[in-house]
């Protein structure tokens, strides 16, 4: 099942590629990290959703694999100006993971193994826009690209697609994450070129 995330309707075929402003096309997959690559044994890996009331929903690695998965094909846009088009992933939609979560939250703070965080409005995680991805291009997701699992939210700059994801905290008030507290734009829409605070 292929899903093209919204926000990429303007793109036509290679040779007439429409990129967000200021981006260039790359065919490799650059690796950028804010720290050492965490290595999490799968038997100890877990993903949690924590509500504003403190209720914790937990999934083990086996739990995640047992959920229905989809195979989105999406374009990636990094704030460092490279874009990579038509990338193939497999993962679980956040719609599935959040289906039974009772919350009045409007915001989410994503936490990663290794301590990274990033924030976004909860609505940007819903309606087929975001996944917990564990396979890339038909292979298990490599640690340097965020394996065993990363958030994939491709309609925003790639720093929002947290590698090594470990949980999502649902919040009534917005709480800026690792880069958002240090000059990066709070929302990060590549089509509006929201790279830095004030953009």
């Amino acid at each position, binding site marked *: 099942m292929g899903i093209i995330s919204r926000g990429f309707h303007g793109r036509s075929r290679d040779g007439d590629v429409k990129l967000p402003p200021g981006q260039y096309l790359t065919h490799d997959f650059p690796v950028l990290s*804010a*720290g050492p690559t*965490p290595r999490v044994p799968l038997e100890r890996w877990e993903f949690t959703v924590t509500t504003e009331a403190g209720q914790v929903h937990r999934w083990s690695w086996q739990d995640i694999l047992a959920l229905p998965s989809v195979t989105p094909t999406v374009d990636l846009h990094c704030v*460092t100006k490279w874009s990579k088009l038509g990338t193939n992933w497999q993962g679980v939609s956040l719609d599935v993971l959040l289906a039974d979560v009772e919350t009045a939250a409007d915001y989410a703070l994503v936490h990663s193994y*290794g*301590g990274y965080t990033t924030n976004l409005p909860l609505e940007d995680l819903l309606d087929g826009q975001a996944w917990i991805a564990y396979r890339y291009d038909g292979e298990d997701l490599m640690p340097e690209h965020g394996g065993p699992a990363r958030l994939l939210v491709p309609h925003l700059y790639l720093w929002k697609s947290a590698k090594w994801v470990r949980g999502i905290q649902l919040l009534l008030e917005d709480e800026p994450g690792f880069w958002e507290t*240090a*000059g*990066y734009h709070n929302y990060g829409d590549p089509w509006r070129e929201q790279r830095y605070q004030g953009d």
Partner: protein
Amino acid sequence: MTERDDAYRDGNSLAGPLSEIFAVDVTAAGGRCAHCGLTGPVATMRVYGSAEAMVGRCPGCEEVMMRLVRGPDAAWLDLRGTVTLRIPLPPD
């Protein structure tokens, strides 16, 4: 959790970007890690990230000591992971 050393540069790579902001060479300053207390030259930090966004980590505990984001017309310097910077100066 970490099995191998990841690709990082040493703190000397901060010299150029920081010289834009400070009149002194900050990589020669002694930074004290807010997490573990280790004190050493900024040049000994482990630096991750891109030219636009650098993360300086403590060589002892790997916690973040410095974040430096360089936009087209501004820079953001986050030093909350550094308790103090001891900046050597010429004697009075």
